[in-house]
């Protein structure tokens, strides 16, 4: 992405130079909020789209030692041009390794991955995510979506997962139509009884979804694995966010407004990471 020298300079900035409300887009705030979930040194497994932009921003800004793994087989690439998907030739530019799925998913199963960055179409209050189908599923589904890809594997076996998704009442539901990616309470087969994730994953239990970032707020999960609103974005209120969920969202633990993006972050997003307008149109 850049030389170590540039990263140090950026990281050395002292007082945050926040952009005024109205001078940035909601997609900017979502990406910046996601990047702030990365701790320096994290091993991050990122999916296609905004997750890629977020991990690159984190690496250029506060977390220069974060390592990014893409599921198609690149480990710790230093792309100078934004990949459009994880299979992109750009992913392995200056990578430590260009291998394949068996290697990187093996690392995931081994417990190497600290943080997963993923997207989804629907989420429920336990952080179960659907990317498979809307409505009734079965032999003849109502509406087929892409399917899970590696989403369910990555989220299931990473220590923490951050989901980035648009906020709509029909997407934040009591129960998703199809559990593609496992949250904190999941079905134990063959009966399908809903139990805490620990009971299903046994020794492979490492964590689960820790944040959902939408265009209205940042959500986290409590001791019971239930979603609550942590921060709300400018121009939203906790009540407005609650009105955009079809389950009874807990807004009793709100910590305040989401931290705004800085000019430095927007500069990195638009001039360094995505100057072509691929994921930030």
């Amino acid at each position, binding site marked *: 992405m850049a030389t170590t020298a540039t990263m140090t300079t950026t990281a050395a900035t002292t007082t945050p130079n926040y952009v005024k409300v109205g001078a940035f887009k909601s997609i900017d705030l979502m990406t910046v909020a996601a990047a702030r979930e990365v701790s320096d040194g994290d091993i991050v497994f990122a999916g296609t789209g905004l997750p890629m932009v977020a991990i690159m921003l984190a690496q250029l800004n506060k977390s220069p030692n974060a390592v990014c793994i893409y599921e198609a087989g690149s480990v710790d690439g230093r792309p100078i*041009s934004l990949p459009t998907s994880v299979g992109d030739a750009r992913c392995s530019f200056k990578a430590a390794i260009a291998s394949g799925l068996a290697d990187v998913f093996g690392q995931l199963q081994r417990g190497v991955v600290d943080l997963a960055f993923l997207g989804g179409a629907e989420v429920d209050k336990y952080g179960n995510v659907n990317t498979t189908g809307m409505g009734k599923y079965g032999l003849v589904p109502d509406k087929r979506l892409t399917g899970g890809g590696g989403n369910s594997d990555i989220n299931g076996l990473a220590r923490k997962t951050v989901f980035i998704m648009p906020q709509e009442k029909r997407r934040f539901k009591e129960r998703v139509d199809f559990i593609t990616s496992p949250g904190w309470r999941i079905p134990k087969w063959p009966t399908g009884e809903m139990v805490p994730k620990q009971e299903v994953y046994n020794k492979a239990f490492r964590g689960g979804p820790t944040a959902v970032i939408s265009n209205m707020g940042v959500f986290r999960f409590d001791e019971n694995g239930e979603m609550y609103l942590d921060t709300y974005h400018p121009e939203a209120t906790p009540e407005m966010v609650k009105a955009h969920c079809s389950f009874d969202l807990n807004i009793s633990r709100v910590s305040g407004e989401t931290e705004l993006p800085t000019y430095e972050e927007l500069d990195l997003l638009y001039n360094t990471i995505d100057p072509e307008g691929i994921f930030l149109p």
Partner: protein
Amino acid sequence: MGKPQKLGLKDAIGLINDGDMLTFSGFTIWRRPMAAIYELIRQKKKDLHLVEVNGGTHSDLLIGTGCVKIWESCWIGHELYGKIGANLGRKAEAGEVIIEDYSHVQVLARMQAGAMGLPYMPTYASMGTDMLNPEYDHLGKLGLRDGSNPKIPKKKYEIVDDPFYGSQLLHIPACNPDWCIAHVQMVGEEGTVRVEGQQYSDSEAIKAADKVIVIAEQVVTEDFVRREPTRNLVAGHQIDYIVELPWAAHPTGCYGIYETDGDFIRNFYSTTRSQEGLDNWVAEWITGVNDFDEYLKKVGVEKLEILRANPALGYSTKVKRGTR
């Protein structure tokens, strides 16, 4: 097994029978054997059974044209250039194709077991999801797990106790497709395969399959690929047929050689949402041309030159990808 036979594309695809189980090289919209897909459609193959680690433009097209009976996989779409696999969607929502859902790691596990000659592979991946919901074991529901087709396992998966360290996990049945059709950058004339860039699940897909057709950008002397054996993926004795056909992954990308043709895929996605739209697209790009050479002429040299990768980077810098 012996040395692989060099064939033209038409003859190689002619070896595939209706009802055969197929898998492919590549990942979503990268290094897919598109010319082979066009030829399968031209030859009107029927009832194909696809098992793939993930789908993409290639399988969406093959399913849309009615060549596929069963699709076992985890994802289909066109990445940035088309949100969903709309042809699979249309066929599935009409009950015209059977979907069997697994996750990425689970399908990979099927290929890994198949490649190693084992009956199944244990994994912790994607437990507690609806991929394992017995209601969605579609092959089981349809009575296709009765053992009459040796390629279809008697169970979709099994949850078992780990006898050694005391845990519980999944056993995922092996898969040995009849065919793997792999598009690669280079192959030696005795079949040694070289793949550049990310290798996706090519090694597992190739080794799991009973027969392998390798379509290469370049066939080179065996001596050339053997100078650096550490760069090679599979030895020639695991390859059955070689087809030399440059650009044969278009419109998907091929690391180091050419970029994904995003405009082409976007156009495919937006014009093939309906069956009529797809039929028109097929009439223009597949049945409307005699072979892949004619297809490439139709795409045009000017476009191909834009897609050609910069060798220093592995991708093209001349493609407009975003809005700026």
